[in-house]
């Protein structure tokens, strides 16, 4: 057995962390808006934002690859205007993961916002707070269970995902070869011993991270004397 390469794990958790952070920033305003809007288009929009997960990950990855490729209009635009190359690069993984995991972040936040006590939000408006202030300082802290669930599912799912990531990222060591891809490859070449070791490490770290988050949350809730 060769010694364990830690880079894939580092990459996995970096990817999961960045994806979760980016998704949070993107999904938050949309979830807030969807929870409050009265537009007739709402059911269609809601269905639309759930779609990224009905395609098999590698097929979605295939379409993303196609869209991001330097010879596609989008890819060309990104490359020329922003200097961004999204295929076979870490930023590309982030973008792909963000697209794929979007519903996992959006849905819990939206349903959390939808079940908030409306008078509490109104109290913030009456106190002169803008929509943004109300969102950040009143709505968000009051949907903590939903927020936690959104963050954790997104994080865990990004750690585990490999279909999209493998397609768009191409398993480049140190750049896009995340742990899930590494494990997949060990299974593919039937190096089961390493597959077991890497899987165990992956599950172990994830368990530790998740437990830490839940413990912190519990502790924090206690300290504040919350419900």
């Amino acid at each position, binding site marked *: 057995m060769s010694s364990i390469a830690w880079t894939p794990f580092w990459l996995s958790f970096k990817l999961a962390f960045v994806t979760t952070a980016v998704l949070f920033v993107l999904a938050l305003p949309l979830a807030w808006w969807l929870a409050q809007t009265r537009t007739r288009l709402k059911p269609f929009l809601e269905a639309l934002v759930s779609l990224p997960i009905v395609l098999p990950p*590698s097929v979605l990855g*295939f379409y993303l*690859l*196609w869209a*991001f*490729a*330097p*010879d596609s209009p989008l890819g060309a635009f990104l490359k020329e205007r922003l200097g961004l190359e999204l*295929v*076979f690069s870490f930023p590309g993984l982030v973008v792909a993961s963000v697209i794929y995991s979007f519903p996992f972040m959006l849905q819990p936040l939206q349903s959390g916002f939808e079940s908030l006590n409306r008078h509490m939000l109104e109290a913030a408006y009456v106190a002169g707070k803008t929509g943004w202030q109300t969102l950040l300082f009143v709505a968000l802290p009051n949907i903590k269970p939903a927020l936690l669930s959104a963050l954790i599912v997104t994080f865990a799912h990004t750690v585990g995902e490999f279909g999209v990531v*493998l*397609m768009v990222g*191409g*398993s*480049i*060591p140190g750049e896009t070869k995340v742990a899930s891809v590494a494990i997949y*490859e060990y*299974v*593919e*070449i*039937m*190096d*089961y*011993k390493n597959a077991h070791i890497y899987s165990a490490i992956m599950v172990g770290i994830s368990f530790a991270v998740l437990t830490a988050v839940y413990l912190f949350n519990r502790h924090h809730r206690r300290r504040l004397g919350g419900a």
Partner: protein
Amino acid sequence: AANVSYAVKDLIQTYRQKDPKSDIRVIVGSSGKLAAQIRHGAPYDLFLSADMGYPLALYHDKLGLEKPKTYAKGVLALLSVRHKKLSNNLHTLLSFAIKKIAVANPKTAPYGKAAREALQNAKIYERVKPKLIYGESVSQTLVYTLRVADAGLVAKSALFSPKLRRFREGKEWVEVDSRLYSPIEQGAVLLKPEGKDFYDFLFSPAAQHIFKAYGYRQP
């Protein structure tokens, strides 16, 4: 192609002795996925496929620098870890004791196509068809053969992987009669000039010796 990944390890070691400064990275994956990536600008120098179809398609799309060449010929093997009375005769598969037979997906994997052909030419395809279960790749087919199927038609090269070396020819596995299927020509196509050295090395006697040790036939 995933099936060459075992041989490739040895190939790189040998190549390194020749050129110690070289830094070769291997990316394992199904041929279809890799082909799609190459089409969209994957930074790969060299593509080793399990058949000629993918390399040729890439070459026709002006992605290959030269016409693809066959670096090795794959061999089909019949493996059974439970049912140990095998003969070169595929008719063993008709036995009642064999309830499930793992083959690679004939649509996506060259070894699957070869397996189907072999069964057809042995005139037992229609009879064993209900027993067939399809793996999506060499390794998946092997996993099926090892765990849940009573027999499997797999890539011989995989049986030389560290994990499977303990299985012996004639005992757990036999070669399938090569006349029953058309040759599995595994093609390589050069994508970038940087891969030229290793590409040439593939066809050197040293490399061909390694391929042979992994159960491949000379092209």
